[in-house]
């Protein structure tokens, strides 16, 4: 695993996951654990399973799902795995909600000038 590099994980709706799996990022490892999570209405979202895996380098997540687990994403400070928020079919990408851009915007808040 270490020799071939890290994986890209996806947490998203069916079409997002299908698209990225078509692109070739999908993996079912020896323990039958996938690197993708198709989120439906009653899916329990736990991004911790991907954040804790050392074989994952980037996590792609639909922004509306990221909103549901914002606390976990904001608490994630490491560079690896990098979390990338992407749009979904029904929810277009909103830069003001993106955790990275919000942190960057925080650069110019009153707290940073203290």
């Amino acid at each position: 695993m270490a020799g071939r590099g890290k994986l890209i994980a996806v947490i998203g709706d069916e079409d997002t996951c299908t698209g990225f799996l078509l692109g070739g990022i999908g993996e079912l490892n020896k323990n039958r654990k996938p690197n993708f999570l198709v989120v439906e209405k009653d899916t329990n979202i736990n991004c911790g399973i991907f954040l804790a895996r050392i074989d994952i380098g980037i996590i792609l997540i639909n922004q509306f799902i990221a909103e549901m687990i914002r606390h976990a994403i904001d608490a994630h400070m490491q560079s690896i795995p990098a979390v990338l928020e992407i749009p979904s079919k029904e929810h277009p990408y909103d830069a003001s909600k993106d955790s990275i851009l919000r942190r960057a915007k925080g650069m110019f808040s009153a707290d940073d000038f203290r």
Partner: protein
Amino acid sequence: MGVSELDESSLLLDEKLLRFMDQLELLEEKRVTLNSLIEQGWFSLSKARYSMGNKQVSALQYASEIEPLVCIHARTQDSGEVEFCTEKVTGCQESGKDVRSIEDIGPQEVGVRKRNKPKKHITEKEANDKASSEKVPEVSPLKKSDLNPQQDPLKWFGILVPHSLKQAQLSFKQVIELSAEIATLQTSVLNTRQELKNGMKDKYNLQDKALGAQLDKVAD
């Protein structure tokens, strides 16, 4: 002395701020491209679903064994920034083994078999030739493993898939490459932000020192 240090730190801060702005601008540009590519991919997926049927392009078609075709390499630089780059996974040893075992089931001899050939005519030379001919097909399965058709996720959805599904695959492949670039940019944005924060703190400390020195002079 204090003033020149202050000027230097201000100049450094300005440089960092400009770099920060450039990185944000580049990030926004790449984000726009990524979003449009994803939309294009969804559109192609919908078109494929329209032509193949509603249930034919869904999570139900995912293979029972999935292996990645793309992986990423993360390199941590001296500055603390992480660079992500994608790499195609060309061959897999496990799948190679599988293909070879399937090939072993088939006929070992290449030519037409002569069933009634008497044993006494077989000389040592012929036996050697036969042995060498048997060695040849052992090489070909290894070559086949590199192009294992089961690996292509397009095949999960059928043999003759519509062109729109191929277009969707192409779009998402581009998205994957772009997402690695964006991840790199994101880490560099956060890194520059941290540098800026530290620079500002240093500048405020210098300003306080300079102000204290000025007040001391006035008091004297």
